[in-house]
């Protein structure tokens, strides 16, 4: 991990503008720019004073819908026709630079098979992003996403996760079929409070756009959370010396204070 931090971020993973959502009908926000406050903070801290930011995403969904393929297309730019069921959990770290800040995006790929679910579900905790995938050509997999999302949400604190619903294998459908399925999917996405995307790992269509969008929103969210926390802290300090327990700061002032005493 330390090595990861040292090496520069690949030029193709630099984001400076908020990527657009797939459809305004089901998306987390419409803003075309990053949050103004976040932008300012990022500019100020450009020098690299902040520690490495990171977020965790878990990928869930039925067996064979193309979760692993989607990740492999994005992270390794490969597509494998051969099917190998994911066993246990796979893991990728994608390194971004967003608004000049290095950002490590962890993607946990879980197994869709029932028999591996026990181990997979142990990895849902602490996720900022839940990506649930379904096969655009198999409507039953869409229905199951509801349960997948519920399972993943159960392991996380309420209101800490953003959800993305992704239809895969876009290349296998005609325009008309796609339109029909997307209607259902968008409805479900709204219901789940998820952002909707259609992608194809085979052709690569929308894959990069999708992950850039997810990473950007996750980054913005985590920056906002940090800002919130800092605000809380300053408020506490404002209350006065009461809650100030920081040993260092009082030690630091000792000399000065002693002089004070001598004087009196």
């Amino acid at each position, binding site marked *: 991990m330390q090595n990861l931090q040292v090496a520069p971020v690949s030029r193709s993973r630099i984001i400076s503008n908020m990527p657009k959502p797939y459809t305004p009908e089901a998306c987390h926000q419409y803003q075309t720019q990053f949050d103004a406050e976040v932008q300012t903070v990022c500019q100020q801290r450009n020098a690299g004073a902040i520690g490495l930011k990171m977020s965790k995403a878990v990928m869930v969904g039925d067996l064979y819908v193309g979760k692993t393929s989607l990740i492999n297309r994005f992270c390794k730019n490969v597509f494998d026709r051969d099917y190998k069921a994911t066993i246990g959990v796979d893991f990728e770290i994608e390194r971004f630079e967003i608004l000049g800040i290095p950002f490590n995006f962890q993607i946990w790929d879980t197994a869709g098979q029932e028999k*591996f679910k*026990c181990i997979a579900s142990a990895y849902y905790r*602490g996720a900022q992003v839940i990506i649930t995938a379904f096969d655009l050509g198999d409507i039953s997999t869409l229905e199951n996403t509801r349960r997948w999302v519920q399972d993943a949400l159960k392991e996380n604190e309420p209101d800490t996760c953003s959800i993305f619903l992704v239809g895969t294998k876009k290349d296998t459908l005609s325009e008309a079929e796609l339109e029909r399925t997307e209607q259902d999917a968008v409805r479900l996405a709204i219901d789940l409070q998820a952002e909707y995307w259609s992608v194809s790992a085979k052709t690569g269509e929308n894959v990069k756009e999708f992950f850039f969008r997810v990473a950007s929103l996750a980054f913005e969210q985590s920056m906002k959370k940090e800002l919130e926390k800092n605000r809380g802290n300053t408020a506490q300090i404002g209350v006065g010396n009461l809650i100030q327990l920081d040993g260092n700061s009082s030690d630091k002032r000792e000399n000065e*204070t002693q002089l004070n005493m001598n004087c009196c």
Partner: protein
Amino acid sequence: MANSLGFQGDGGSVLSMEHVRSLTDLQDLKEAYERLCAEEKDVESELLTLLGQQTIVEKKMLALQRMGPNLQLIEGDAQQLSGMITFTCNLAENVSSKVRQLDLAKSRLYQAIQRADDILDLKFCMDGVQTAMKNEDYEQAAAHIHRYLCLDKSVIELSRQGKEGNIIEANLHHLQEAEQHLKVVVSEKFDAATKSGDLPQVERFFKIFPLLGLHEEGISKFSGYLCKQVAKKAEENLQLALGTEGGERRAALIFADTLTLLFEGIARIVETHQPILETYYGPGRLYMLIKHLQAECDRQVEKVVDKFVQHRDYHRKFQQVQSCMMRGSSTDKIEPRDLDPILSEVTLMSARTELYLRFIKRRVVSDFEVGDSMATEEVKQEHLQNLDKLIKHCLLSCSVQELIGYYITMEEFYMRESVNKAVAMDTCERGQLISSMVDDVFYIVKKCIGRALSSSSIDCLCAMINLSTTMLESDFREVLCNKLRMGFPATTFQDIQRGVTSAVNLMQSSLQQGKFDTKGIESNDEAKMSFLVSLNNVEVCSENIMTLKKNLENDCNKMFSQGLGGEQAKAKIDSCLSDMASVSNKFKDLLQEGLGELNSTAVKPQVKPWINLFLSVSHNIEEEEFNDYEANDPWVQQFIVNLEQLMAEFKAGLSSVIYENLTSLLTSLIAMELEKVVLKSTFSRLGGLQFDKELRSLIAYLTTVTTWTIRDKFARLTQMATILNLERVTEILDYWGPNSGPLTWRLTPAEVRQVLALRIDFRSEDIKRLRL
């Protein structure tokens, strides 16, 4: 004149004839004349210098004339030289072309010899094969065929075209027939040897296959033979295992042991036969053998796992656990301790599997390294990827992963149930600041994560770390949270006054009994104890989590240094462990919350009235009262005694770190409240002195109860005392502005005036007039 003018004109005079002729004015003519005269002078001097050079030119001419004959000589020599060079050049050209021809001839000769050799070899092979086959010398026959297969195809073509074309054609035909025949024979003989279990014969024919270009077939057949052996041995071992009596030493681990025997058997086979394979088939072929062996291994593993599941009732236990977890309490509750054996066995099975797969991987990778040393990067990558796929997706991996999946759920149950018990049985032992459940819970967590670690499976370990983190973060933190939420019962001033704190009494009496039950709290004092113990518990939890994390990091580094797991595994572990650190911080936050609560409910309501008593002590005093105060302290001594009593309870009941935090909160509180009452009082000169004494006593006392510096917190009060002690208003200027020296004023000018105004003997005009 005209002539000379004409000459001059030709000579390029400045003035042309026409010009001169056209002149009519005397003045002009005169001018022209003068210019012509000057020109003439110039020409004359030029002529003179030229004439002066005449001798030199003549000398040079003479020398040149003398050189003439020599030049003729040189020309002759040069012609001769050129002829010679041309001749030499031709000669060299001649020689080298001959050498080239010779070279060509030589290489043709070699080729001819080679071809003759080949043809001879071919003949030799043709003859040899027949004899060898007749003598059942298959090695020899195969060697001949191998030689034939290695021959340049053009040689064979050439031989056909030769004079003896027909004979050779026939012989060739024989040779091909022999080749086919030999292939069949070797294959048959190999099968026969396999059937009779004749290892020397098996190996004998195994070595022949590659000579016939049948590498894959040879390896496949040989693997078949080895697989049969693996299967036979595995079958025996499984039967033995199933016959094991319950009381035997390793009965509880018998399926793990059976799996181990299977892996050891395969490892031994690889060790034994890899040299033969490498010698006769070349490096880079181990993968093929392993692929076959793994298929058999998978078949045998399936049987062992089936029997394991069946005999240990693995699935039913899992389902039972699952329903227990879902419904909370159920009728057929499982005792977590009863799960110990099966959990140990599964993790051992996983550990053996990881060890075996690591062995296989290492062997094949190093074989590929030799075999692919000349291969392109692409081929190398493809080989390694195939190997990874084989290892990741073989039935063995899948089966074990599945077992581990169930294990994880059972281990989680084990952990949760044990933790629940520890919480239910929580007591506080004599002399302990924390209660039993903290140690118990971390013992359990360590045990469960340790068991997951012993499986050598990174996924299993990470899952268990996550589950433990979740349990600590939500469930266990909730338990502590609830205890803290019950609060520290507020005690009235009178309660404290009733004597030495009763909680201390209770603590002492309960300590005499040795135990203190943290549940079923009835009295106020027990509630107090419970709160303090919970605070300590929270702090220890946050520390224990960090220790756990550090220990796990060490364990994992050890594991990685043994070659288990790759880059990805490290990143996975890092991610899970960093999550653990954030949970430790959540406990720290909870501690701060609890301390804040304690401060506002137990400390503040008591300390404030004590400080307010300051107001009832007049500081507008004269000599007599001052002396009286000297004899009978009116406020500060009692305040200190009260504080001591108040804090004694906390000092006894809180860990030193938390106590330090609390005293820090206390001193801040005192400083703030005291400032308020001082600003409400009035002071005489001696009253100021009195206050200064009181403040010094207080600071001196507080300094003894905390290791942190408190002077800083009392800086403002100290400066107020300084002001209240002044002789005259203007004396402040000795300390202010440019005279402040090392002193940093914490009071604003307005505040300084406000404090000065507290002195009844200072006139407000003087204070107003003050320039600060």
